[in-house]
């Protein structure tokens, strides 16, 4: 079947295989045609009775067993067997089986193949078969004349072949014909193999669909996680923080009421107030780490500016965004930047960090560069891998360049189209 010199093809077993394959398809195609017509016609006629639906379902699913048979029959002309495109249905009930099969695209492709086989390939195969038969008759002309039908064989109408030797030219013509038939069968087999590959083999799409589904479920998890963070932030803000503020206020009022009457008690109250304030400070830091309010209200650039103001290393910020970005992008970008800044402060020994950000073709691009000693290893810490994972869910990318001796540069790209 592959690229070989023509005469090698003729002398190999391939013509036989192709004939077997193509001609074998003829009775098979006719059987399929008959079955399909009976099922469809019967189904339509009895659709009022209710059994019609079952017949039509059977017609729809008839491609499945045919596909299995065809993949096996393909072994005649195709060395590598095709894999079954269907999902395994071990131990499933009849209802589940039917539903699964009807939901699979492979089932419908096989049905299409069934119709092609019944209408096109069997017809073409019939043509090849007839040619083959004719060629065989020509080749065996002398034998026929000699053994079976002396004086009555007429290849050319009106002119009987008188004796076996006179049939020899016809044998030569028959051999030529046979070669042509072999090529025709080869060609047809080739087309059929291609079609079978296209319609009967598994496509990669179920796997892709699986990956998409997985990504979606991961994104849902992240969303749920994000919602939970928001809820905690809200609870802390509306609950604990307000309670503590109210406490400092009550202590302040008590101090005021007490005046200078009892200095010892006033000092204790002042201390209590100081402790409450420190608790508030800690709580504020915690809340900021969960989800900063400024990010919600003013967006990425403002929130990053607030972080930079408290950062031990000078941070230069150049974030220029024409509009607010989707919430998930903003949050992820914010935490990526804060993580990068934390790393820079902890490990890099840098004296300056630069954060640049912009939007190009609806993609957010961020670069965080420090002038430190470099050598950051994404595989080393969980921080960077965690960020890369979060970005991956948004179909974003994190690139880390950190040669020994620095500088360290983090590049983040996130698509912003929803």
């Amino acid at each position, binding site marked *: 079947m592959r690229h070989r010199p023509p005469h090698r093809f003729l002398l190999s077993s391939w013509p036989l295989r192709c004939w077997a394959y193509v001609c074998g398809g003829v009775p098979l195609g006719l059987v399929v045609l008959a079955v399909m017509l009976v099922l469809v016609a019967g189904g339509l006629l009895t659709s009022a009775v209710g059994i019609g639906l079952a017949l039509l379902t059977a017609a729809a699913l008839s491609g499945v067993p045919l596909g299995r048979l065809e993949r096996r029959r393909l072994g005649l002309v195709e060395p590598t067997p095709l894999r079954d495109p269907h999902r395994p249905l071990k131990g499933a009930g009849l209802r589940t089986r039917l539903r699964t099969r009807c939901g699979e695209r492979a089932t419908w492709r096989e049905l299409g193949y069934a119709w092609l086989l019944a209408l096109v390939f069997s017809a073409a195969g019939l043509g090849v078969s007839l040619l083959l038969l004719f060629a065989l008759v020509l080749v065996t002309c002398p034998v026929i004349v000699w053994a079976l039908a002396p004086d009555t064989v007429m290849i050319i109408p009106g002119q009987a072949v008188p004796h076996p030797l006179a049939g020899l030219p016809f044998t030569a013509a028959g051999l030529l014909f046979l070669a042509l038939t072999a090529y025709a069968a080869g060609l047809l087999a080739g087309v059929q193999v291609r079609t079978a590959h296209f319609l009967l083999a598994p496509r990669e799409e179920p796997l892709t669909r699986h990956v998409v589904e997985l990504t979606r479920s991961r994104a849902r998890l992240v969303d749920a996680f994000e919602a939970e963070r928001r809820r905690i932030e*809200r609870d802390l*803000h*509306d609950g604990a*923080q*307000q*309670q*503590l*503020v*109210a406490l*400092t*206020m*009550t*202590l*302040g*009022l008590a*101090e*005021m009421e007490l005046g200078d009457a009892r200095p010892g008690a006033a000092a204790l109250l002042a201390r209590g*107030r100081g402790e*409450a*304030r420190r608790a*508030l400070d800690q709580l*504020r830091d915690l809340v*900021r780490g969960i989800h*900063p*309010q*400024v990010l*919600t*209200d*003013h967006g990425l650039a*403002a*929130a990053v*500016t*607030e972080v*930079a*103001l*408290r950062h031990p290393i*000078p941070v230069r910020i150049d974030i220029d965004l024409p509009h607010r970005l989707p919430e998930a992008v903003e949050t992820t970008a914010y935490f990526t930047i804060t993580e990068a800044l934390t790393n820079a402060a902890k490990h890099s020994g840098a004296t300056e960090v630069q954060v640049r950000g912009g939007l190009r073709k609806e993609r957010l691009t961020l670069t965080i560069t420090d002038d430190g000693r470099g050598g950051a290893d994404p595989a080393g810490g969980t921080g960077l891998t965690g960020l890369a994972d979060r970005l991956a869910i948004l179909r974003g990318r994190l690139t880390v360049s950190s040669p020994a001796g620095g500088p360290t540069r983090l590049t983040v790209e996130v698509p912003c189209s929803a």
Partner: protein
Amino acid sequence: MLRVVLAEDAVLLRAGLVELLTRGGHEVVAAVGDAPSLTRAVETERPDVVITDVRMPPDFRDEGLKAALDLRARHGRLPVLVLSQYVATAYATQLLTGDGAGLTGLGYLLKDRVGEVADFLTTLRRVAAGETVIDPEVVRVLLSRRTEPLTRLTPREREVLSLMAQGLNNQTIAHRLTVTEASVVKHASNIFTKLSLDPTEGNRRVLAVLAHLRGDAGAGA
């Protein structure tokens, strides 16, 4: 005595603030829990000063702050003291540079300042009298930023600027830093020069703070 409209969605805190203000000798003419009610209360009560939380219902974003700025835009110089849970320069900037901001009668305080009752009441009176007061923490954060114009200030000048930004007058600043008032004036003049602030323009102290909030002293007001 000041007539105060108070907007704070946390019930506990609202009650506490009402008590504090009443004990401080003021009258709380309305204490509300969301931004639309704040607007309505101001329209009907015409208070001397508004105290509002930043984050308020219905969306729990910066409704309180926005409502206060809207009210100022409509009611001239209605003094507004904003209480915030967070030391966020973004909110302070929004307050001082937003629509209807103006340069008088504005305050931005961290919520826990209410614990220092006497200071809080003083601040409220100053805001109501038309001064602008920014939380010392915000000023500290801003001054720690290494922006170009600020690096030209000496540490003492930054200190003076910080106190000025809190709305203190020269006498008080001199007292706090235990220097003469004349040297405070000298420092202030140096600050104005270094930050390229036009001495003929309004409240230069506030302009100086604004310069920080914007991070570009050259733009001035």
